[in-house]
């Protein structure tokens, strides 16, 4: 057999393997989709929507942290900006259809994200984390003192309204399928971004920024775009959250929330697609079950403990560790 035939052979087997992997992933995704479609008949839909909103928030955060290597400690600002904007519009302009309110909230977070990005990428590493944290605190002060947010009281009774002016979202089931559709759309978008050439450059920046620079990539532009997309999706999560729960409060803007999304991503597995979703499910469940039991006052220290244990013992997170295990034992 000559050289080129050999190469063609190898190529064929690689393609075959890739196709098999692709099939496996599709099947996994289909199973998950079925599960999510059936879930509201077994579990309270509002609880599921909470998980989906936080999952989207974590997916958005992971695009920046897990795939680009930028640790933002200020993502709560975008969640809150989306939530407050949507809440304000829907509360004050009755007749505005819900999706427009959500789009407006997402846009507000997008522009805020652009502002954050342009300032924070001027510093690297830990300074980046400190700058985003400080900027988010500035936004927090702004929300505390603004009239339209309701200050310490927050916004209550935000109407869910009608989707496209037709579908009544007061119905939990319609609301759930709307949130699910948005979530899946965003998940697929992030999947597409990560596997695109653009996503490859992001990974390159994460692994070795100086080399990416020397290869001629305008690293700052890539980082800013990743930041803005991440902020927009985080804002979208906040907007939907405010519609689902019909309230927006300062909790969403607090640094504590920025820490929580880091924890979700880390526990689930940073830099994996499914990780943040699993992590958000895990954290929301822990918080819920603890708040029902005798340990309800100990949620914070327990989350802190989860943080410490994850960092010490399994840094790749749940999904990352499973992937490692599968690779090692099943090959």
């Amino acid at each position, binding site marked *: 057999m000559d050289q080129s035939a050999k190469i063609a052979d190898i190529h064929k087997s690689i393609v075959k393997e890739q196709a098999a992997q692709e099939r496996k992933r599709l099947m996994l995704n289909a199973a998950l989709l079925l599960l999510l479609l059936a879930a509201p008949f077994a579990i309270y839909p509002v609880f599921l929507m909470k998980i989906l909103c936080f999952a989207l928030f974590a997916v958005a955060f992971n695009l920046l942290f897990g795939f680009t290597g930028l*640790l933002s400690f200020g993502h709560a600002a975008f969640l809150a900006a989306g939530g407050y904007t949507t809440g304000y519009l829907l509360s004050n302009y009755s007749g505005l259809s819900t999706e427009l309110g959500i789009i407006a909230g997402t846009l507000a977070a997008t522009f805020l994200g652009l502002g954050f990005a342009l300032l924070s990428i*001027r*510093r690297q590493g830990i300074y980046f984390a400190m700058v985003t944290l*400080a*900027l988010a605190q500035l936004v927090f002060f702004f929300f505390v*003192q603004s009239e339209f947010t309701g200050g310490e009281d927050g916004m209550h009774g935000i109407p869910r309204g009608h989707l496209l002016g037709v579908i009544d979202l007061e119905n939990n089931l319609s609301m759930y399928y709307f949130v699910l559709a948005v979530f899946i759309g965003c998940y697929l978008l992030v999947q597409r971004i990560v596997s695109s050439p653009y996503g490859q450059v992001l990974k390159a920046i994460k692994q070795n920024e100086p080399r990416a620079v020397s290869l001629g990539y305008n690293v700052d532009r890539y980082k800013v775009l990743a930041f803005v997309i991440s902020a927009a999706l985080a804002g979208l999560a906040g907007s939907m959250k405010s519609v689902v729960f019909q309230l927006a409060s300062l909790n969403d803007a607090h640094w504590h929330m920025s820490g929580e999304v880091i924890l979700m991503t880390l526990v689930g597995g940073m830099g994996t697609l499914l990780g943040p979703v699993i992590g958000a499910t895990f954290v929301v469940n822990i918080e819920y079950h603890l708040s029902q039991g005798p340990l309800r006052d100990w949620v*914070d220290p327990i989350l802190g403990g989860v943080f410490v244990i994850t960092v*010490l013992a399994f840094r790749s997170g749940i999904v990352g560790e499973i992937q490692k295990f599968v690779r090692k034992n099943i090959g």
Partner: protein
Amino acid sequence: MSMIFGVPLAVLSGQLLIGIINGAFYALLSLGLAVIFGLLKIINFAHGAMYMLGAMVTVLMFNALGVSYWVALFMAPLLVGAFGVVIEYFLLRRIAGQDHIYSLLLTFGVALIIQGVLINWFGVSGLRYAMPDMFKGGINLGFMFMPYYRAWVIVAALLVCFGTWFVIEKTKLGAYLRAGTEDSQLMQGFGINVPLLISLTYGFGVALAAFAGVLAAPIYSVTPVMGSTTLIVVFAVVVIGGMGSIGGAIITGILMGVIEGLTKTFYPPASSAVIFLVMVLVLMFRPSGLFGKEA
């Protein structure tokens, strides 16, 4: 009464004094951060919690054992510093070779634990700590009234800052520290016990935070959440100053306190935001920080 820009001189100088005192706290805290960063290359997110611990320990030792302020001034930093060494030895050291982001997240988790546990024990409302007798009252400087304790805070903070600067820049131990910052592997090769040095450095940085906590106990309300908001401001101060130089950290801290005080006099609503706004300006026009050497 003399006026400056429409503000009575006494009010202005009073706010300026408060500004300098806040600045002294910022300086102490950012100094500790800078010392830790120098050798460990991490940002200590538990720094606010350690500052809070310093204040809490002071109050609790007084309530339980009647330990006086002066003893607390040494005991609290010592205890908290020892606690820091334990954290370094059992937690931070285990992930020393990993990406620095992980150690940052670890300290964040530690801060959540400390703060959460103390909130459970003591609630979020403040504990009371009586002003030591000898500091009651003050002196009239003619243009303003200067409480003795506030004068003491400024003197004590400046002394400790200067002492730290002196030790790091002028002594043999400081030379080891600076060498470790440059190349800790090479230093290990020269037979210096680098892991011990790292533990002690973390303990010392944390002790500085606790010292600030003791100073704060009689004048601020002592609560488990007092550290977290302060820490975010200190981060902004650190971004403004850069962690390249010890002197820079001190000067920036005091400067930012003064700016905050002036803002409180002339435009109160912006006073909690002004340091962050300064940070934004610095990022726009001098991204590496006022005293920073690198980005």
